[in-house]
């Protein structure tokens, strides 16, 4: 199969993730959408790597997975502390600093 198709799929996934970040209200779901965007990046990196016949893209994909894991650790810690002090993980409720 033509690897270009994977690039289109990656672009679609990235767009779904980005619109999810903008639309959804729950911080956890927003965060999952960000993860979806990172995975879309991985897919396109691997597809480009296959097209070019070198491994740089695949190496970056591994690094991205590690970064995504680290981001989950930090992100969940922050979101859980917010949830425990407010009993809500909605990003709309967090508006103490609105001007």
């Amino acid at each position: 199969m033509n690897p270009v198709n994977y690039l289109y799929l990656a672009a679609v996934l990235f767009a779904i993730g980005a619109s999810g970040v903008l639309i959804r209200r729950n911080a956890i779901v927003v965060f999952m959408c960000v993860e979806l965007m990172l995975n879309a990046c991985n897919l396109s990196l691997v597809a480009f790597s296959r097209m070019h016949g070198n491994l740089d893209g695949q190496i970056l994909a591994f690094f991205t997975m590690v970064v995504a894991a680290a981001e989950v650790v930090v992100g969940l810690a922050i979101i859980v502390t917010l949830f425990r002090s407010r009993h809500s993980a909605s990003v709309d409720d967090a508006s103490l600093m609105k001007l």
Partner: protein
Amino acid sequence: MSASAVHSLWTTAAEPVSRIDAPHIEYGQLSPILIVVGAGVLGILVEAFVARRARYHVQLFLSVVALAAAFAAVVGLAVTGHGSTKAGIVAMGAIAVDGPALFLQGTILLAGLVSLFTFAERRLDPVAHGKQVDSFVAQAGAPPGSKSEQAAVKAGFTTTEVFPLALFAVAGMLVFPAANDLLTLFIALEVFSLPLYLLCALARRKRLVSQEAAVKYFLLGAFSSAFLLFGIALLYGYAGTLSYAGIAEVVDGTVTSIDPALADTMGNDALLLIGAAMVLMGLLFKVGAVPFHMWTPDVYQGAPTPVTGFMAAATKVAAFGALLRLLYVVLPGLSWDWRPVLWGVAIITMLLGAIVAITQTDIKRLLAYSSIAHGGFILAGVIAMNEAGISSVLFYLLAYSFVTIGAFSVVTLVRDAGGEATHLSKWAGLGRRSPLVAAVFAVFLLAFAGIPLTSGFAGKFAVFKAAAEGGAGALVVVGVISSAIAAFFYIRVIVLMFFSEPRPEGPTVAVPSPLTMTTIGVGVAVTLVLGVAPQYFLDLANQASVFVR
């Protein structure tokens, strides 16, 4: 049939593993980064193995020594010519050690060092249960107002993890402006962002606001780094390599041997343009340029003030360093495309930052909008696209970071019963009650406004001069106009402090320990020295203004 013959039906002997050559790492030239990372790891071990009451002193000692040693290493590298004649690319092409990298690393280390002193300040908060406490939460996991929080406060806990976190952030910032391929750029971005997200959530007072700031910073930061990563993927697709020099060759069209797979994609300008735009978006977010600035005021207001000062200064230095290298090393061949875009971004950043700042009533938010406007001024120097552009941006970043850290550490001193009194109305008459603090703050505000004899003037002059030489005259006009607008609200705060009656129930000014005094003193000294005699530092920035490729 023998067993081994059957076995060979579905297995085959692996090729003998060929020798893998170990990568060549120039440890000496990477020493500033390695020292800081090593101290961060040691700091984690200190958290695990040292008794709780001794941790604060051990951590403070360790981080101060590490940052000072790393700064000494940077100076050593610069003196031995690694910034100019011996500039080169190290660690298998991942990191560039050259003039701009060393200059910015030195700036980040000094800024990190003086803001670490404000992290360690323990005399501002009232003594709780016989224990001196700093501005960080007793136990981050305990919900605000809960029993477990009261217990943690009563036990006198402090979050000494902030020191290793700050060290990791500094390490990422050291790599960020020196990154010489897109992989290193992305990893460095995450390495300095993740600790900052956590640091934002750790305020001792106003914890709900602090946690809210952390969530906002985290979600938007992760969102923007996803854009950066997708941009990196597209640039990789376009050029078939992640190294800056390799991409620059493809952009310039000077590739000598084109392999057939590459021929398909490197003609595809859509990949290049969209990829470059997305990478720029990610960097402009970290810089806080309009329209990617929305996080700045909330995060600056909510984060603990020492962290805000650190973040405002060091992140900006690192992000502008990375932006400069990307635009001047990788994408000069594309400057006809990115310059108009950055023109627009710089103009709205300067104007919006200055105009919205006028309406602010909270001193931290006001400084946040002022930092947005300053980001616009620095962008004007970036757009210049000449050597003066690089050196003026380097100088501006040095000047700006010390003014910012100084200003935020003054904010930590003005307090009332609820912690820091950040509402502007409470600052009325401060000049009558404590003239020294108000005068110091006035110096910082005048430097922000760019009044002569302060570092702000020298920096702005250098940046605007470079922009004018680079053919961005209109930008200079807008810059001067927005400086005038910005001067209005800086002067307004000074007038408020000195020429209005102090309120009877107004805030008190806490007397800090020598730590914060050092920070503020260094801030004032750098502001005045760079303002009165900037020539030496301008020359230094000039010598450091050549990127290695």
